[in-house]
């Protein structure tokens, strides 16, 4: 038997250095980089570097040998080689000034085809959706670029087109869930086919020059090249899933024949599409909405009522409410407000929106429209204001969506100091101590009570008590008055009912008529005696009883919880026991921490209140003394 040599098997053969890969594939380094990015082949870190590098311990870039073998089969390798040949030949033509040949060659430039690679890298549609985060962020970023070195203008234009198409889908499917304005840009999170897709859109400002030191533009451009193809296919599938025509088109009703449309139809259409303000052409006639959701709910109801199911149900309800959050509202966006993010938000939750026609094409109504309910403004004051609408700052829209309800607008009025914009990516229902201030920010109902309690604090307690007493007295008075009134009316009815005419003969004709009617009714009553009697009895029986407070037996609940917990503990498999214990311990420590913090807060609050009270008392005393002195002086 042959004695095995060193590095002929094992890790040394599993990995291949970049240089060796280049030699194997017969490509230049640039071409190899491109191929790897397009095919999704990335360098690897071996377990034992020295073994993988056949004894050398410097850090080389290594690839899986299998990956490289896989690349050998790729058809675009031939295209990349064709590029090389093309460059050589066209260079020669240019050098000898054979322009006829050069033109022919340029027309036959070998195009790279990436369709099959998309399918290969993402075998299912869900896989593609999972990887959409990077893709969308990069494309949104590139869509803001002018033509730069290594980034052609066509690429950024294509990025713009694809991202607009994607936004159309998001609007049509109402799949947006969370939004966040950060100093980086706008974060958007949508739920597409159950996958959370998050992307960042840069702030709409003039182009900022990018330094070439930090980022390899060539590499990014290649990534974008692949992602454009991928997003194209994803868009196609998404649009067809919603029965929308792809590429997006308008229904013929929008396209009226006027001088503008006839002049240049294609640019007119593309402008309107970029405006994101019109419904797109559907391939089917029906408009079906929220049917799927109902089905989901029914399915859920069949299952048992575990905590998860309840949570899911709640979530589904919330989402259903969110989808029609802005329904019936009409927004107008002022010039200084970034248009695109707000349009996406408002339109995807059912609102109507327009803007100044001079800012961008596609405005549907004017500022002077009286039916506008909200005008979004980002300046301290405005000269002409309409009474019929609220002037709000853009943050209102974002906060409404994050909290999934329409917030009171008074905190967001024009020129108002805004409440902080919280991140929706931090779970507000997390199981830790949340200070009351933050809680108030999440729950607007708490804000109001908080404000009121503050007012109470300002008054002294005695005054508050007085007020309460006064209120109670007022209520009592009201009640007595009401009772008296009821008695009066009852008596009046009695007399009217029994004697009829003898009460007042000087009554107006109307009264006479009424009496006649009553008489007629009486006759009827006599005729249908039994029925009315029963009805009357029922009426008398009908009353609102004061409800009893359902008494919660805390002990029993606690006991049930403990039992359940014990059962759970028993169900845990022995190999997971340690993990279970760890989880429980963590939970306990968390609870303890929370309790401690809450206690601390309570103490602090109590102390603060006490201090305030004493301060006020002293102030009062001082005032009284001063008054006494003044009297004495007088």
């Amino acid at each position, binding site marked *: 038997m042959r004695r095995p040599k060193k590095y002929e098997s094992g890790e040394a053969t599993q990995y291949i250095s970049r240089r060796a890969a280049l030699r194997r594939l017969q490509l230049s380094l640039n071409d190899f980089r491109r191929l790897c990015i397009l095919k999704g082949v*990335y360098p690897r870190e071996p377990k034992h570097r020295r073994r993988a590098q056949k004894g050398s311990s410097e850090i080389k870039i290594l690839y899986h040998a299998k990956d490289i073998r*896989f690349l050998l089969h790729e058809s675009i390798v031939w295209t990349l080689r064709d590029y090389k040949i093309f460059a050589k030949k066209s260079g020669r033509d240019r050098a000898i000034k054979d322009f006829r040949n050069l033109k022919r060659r340029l027309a036959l430039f070998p195009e790279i085809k990436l369709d099959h690679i998309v399918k290969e890298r993402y075998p299912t549609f869900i896989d593609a959706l999972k990887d959409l985060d990077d893709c969308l962020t990069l494309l949104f970023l590139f869509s803001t670029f002018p033509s730069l070195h290594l980034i052609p203008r066509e690429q950024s234009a294509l990025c713009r087109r694809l991202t607009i198409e994607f936004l159309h889908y998001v609007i049509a499917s109402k799949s947006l869930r969370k939004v966040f304005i950060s100093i*980086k*840009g706008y974060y958007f999170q949508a739920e597409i086919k159950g996958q959370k897709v998050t992307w960042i859109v840069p702030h709409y400002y003039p182009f900022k020059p990018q330094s070439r030191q*930090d980022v390899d533009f060539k590499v990014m451009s290649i990534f974008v090249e692949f992602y454009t193809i991928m997003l*194209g296919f994803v868009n196609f599938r998404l649009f067809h899933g919603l029965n929308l025509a792809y590429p997006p088109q308008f229904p013929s009703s929008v396209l009226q024949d006027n001088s503008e449309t006839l002049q240049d139809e294609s640019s007119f259409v593309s402008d309107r599409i970029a405006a994101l303000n019109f419904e797109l052409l559907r391939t089917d006639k029906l408009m079906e909405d929220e049917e799927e959701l109902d089905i989901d709910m029914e399915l859920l109801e069949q299952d048992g009522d575990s905590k998860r199911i309840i949570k899911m149900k709640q979530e589904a309800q919330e989402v259903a409410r969110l989808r029609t959050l802005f329904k019936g509202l009409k927004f107008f966006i002022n010039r200084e407000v970034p248009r695109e993010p707000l349009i996406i938000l408002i339109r995807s939750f059912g609102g109507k929106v327009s803007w100044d026609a001079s800012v961008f094409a596609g405005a549907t109504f004017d500022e002077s429209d009286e039916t506008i309910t909200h005008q979004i403004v980002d300046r301290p004051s405005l000269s002409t204001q309409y009474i019929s609408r609220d002037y709000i700052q853009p943050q209102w829209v974002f906060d409404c969506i994050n909290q999934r309800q329409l917030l009171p607008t008074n905190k967001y009025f024009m020129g108002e100091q805004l409440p902080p914009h919280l991140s929706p990516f931090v779970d507000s229902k997390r199981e830790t101590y949340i200070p009351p201030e933050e809680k108030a920010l999440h729950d607007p109902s708490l804000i109001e009570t908080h404000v009121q309690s503050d007012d109470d604090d300002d008054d002294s307690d005695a005054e508050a008590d007085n007020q309460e007493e006064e209120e109670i007295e007022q209520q009592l008075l009201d009640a007595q008055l009401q009772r008296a009134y009821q008695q009066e009316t009852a008596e009046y009815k009695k007399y009217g009912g029994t004697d009829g005419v003898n009460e007042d003969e000087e009554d107006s004709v109307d009264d006479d008529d009424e009496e006649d009617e009553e008489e007629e009714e009486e006759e009827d009553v006599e005729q249908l005696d039994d029925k009315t009697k029963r009805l009357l009895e029922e009426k008398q029986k009908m009353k609102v009883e004061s409800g009893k407070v359902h008494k919660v037996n805390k002990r029993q609940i606690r006991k049930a919880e403990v039992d359940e917990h014990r059962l759970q503990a028993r169900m845990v498999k022995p190999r997971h026991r340690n993990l279970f214990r760890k989880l429980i311990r963590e939970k306990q420590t968390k609870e303890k921490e929370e309790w401690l913090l809450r206690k601390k807060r309570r103490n602090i609050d109590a102390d603060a209140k006490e201090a305030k009270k004493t301060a006020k008392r002293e102030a009062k005393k001082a005032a009284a003394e001063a008054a006494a002195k003044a009297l004495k002086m007088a």
Partner: protein
Amino acid sequence: MATVEPQTKRKRISKKNKSAWRKTDIQDVEQFLEDQRQEERIGTFKDKLDDDLFVLDTSTQKVKASLLTPKQKRKLNAKKAMRTHQVFENTSKVQDPIAKRNKVRQKQNGRNIELEVCNPTKPRHRQANADRARYNEKLEERLAVKQDSDKKHKIDKDIWQEEDFRDKIPGLKDEKGWISRPLALHVAFNLQGHKVVKTHGSLHHKTTKAKKFVPPHPGMSYNPSHKAHQELIDQVVDREEGIIKKEQHLKRVTTSMFSIVTPEERDRLRLKEMSEGIDEPETTEKEKNKANGDDDDDNDAGQKQKTVDSDGEYHTVNAPVENKKKSKKARRNELKQKELQRQHDVKKKLKQQTADLIRIKSIRAEINEEAEELNELKKRRKKTAERKKFEPKRLGRHKYEEPDADVNMPEDLAGNLRNVKTESNLLKDRFKLMQRNNMLAPSVAVSRKKSKVKRFLRGSHKEPGVSFQDLRDRRKAAANAAKANNNTIKI
């Protein structure tokens, strides 16, 4: 002085007999004697006058040698007729009476394709024309197809639709299962070039356990709550402090470890350090003289390094090697000692073992301790391995560096959307994210070094010239003058 002959190895010759004496080479001696005699006859250079030795050069100056490079020379030579062809040149001054006689037809370089295309004379010309037409037709077709597909980034199919390649080719799909899938694949490939390459699983393996989407810190909001913003700033400050601490440590350990000296001092020290061990010739001589004067023995013993003594004898640095033989007795003794040592060791070991019997309990404890330590180590290793799964891998020469967190300083917080101060570069952020997700090997941008260009003002620049600017100025001045004139006239 005698001329110095090239040294040759002297041959040893036996000079036993008188006749052998003749073999002795006495040429050099004879040469010397001959020279001497000649000097006596003519006299030496010193005796002669300058006029006898030197002559004034009155001839016309020679043409300087051409400064052509060999390449240029070669080019010039190439223009000349070949030496072999020079014979054929007609050097006669007599004119040819019949000028038309020797008209040589220049042979055409290559074919005249145009002629062949326009009026084909040979069958191959016709064939070529037909071929060309066919090629052009095909080209047109290809161009048309390309322009169609080129028009837009065209996407007109759903690639994720489940479809069987066997549907496309009639006869490939049969319900009975006669045609196996591999066979179908084979046929499809041969018929339509439909190739199926299997992607291996490791291509889709995740290389990191870290989450793809990192939620932004709530303090990064354009209008953050005070608490969140402070938290973020604290994070940034912590990181920055760490970096400063590291830098200071490095500085303390490297730069400030060495004392600071003036440049002159540094140079002097360097000179001293580099010339360590090399004795300057003058000083050594002086020392030698001194040593000779004082005491010779001491000097010889102390200065081992000296290679050449005053006598000129050669001494090595190390002492000469001596071949000292051990005596048989010494060898025997050595062996005996070795054996004794071995026996002693064995005895000692035995003793130790008996002693260990008593110590069994403590030994067990030791072993247990060791096992525990090992266990601890194992645990720690496992933990680090687990942690490493979330960290970016080391893919290339450079290590991945966490980018700085984006934060607005408190004074930059505007509180409204109009005045947001954007802090981050989204492109850089994405680039770093790709590095974090092991998609790119971290790299450092290498900028090509620009050659240094020495710039200076050309002499001619200072000379007055006419530029566009000048011309425009002049024109304006003239126009103004004209206007002024007009005005004055009008008034």
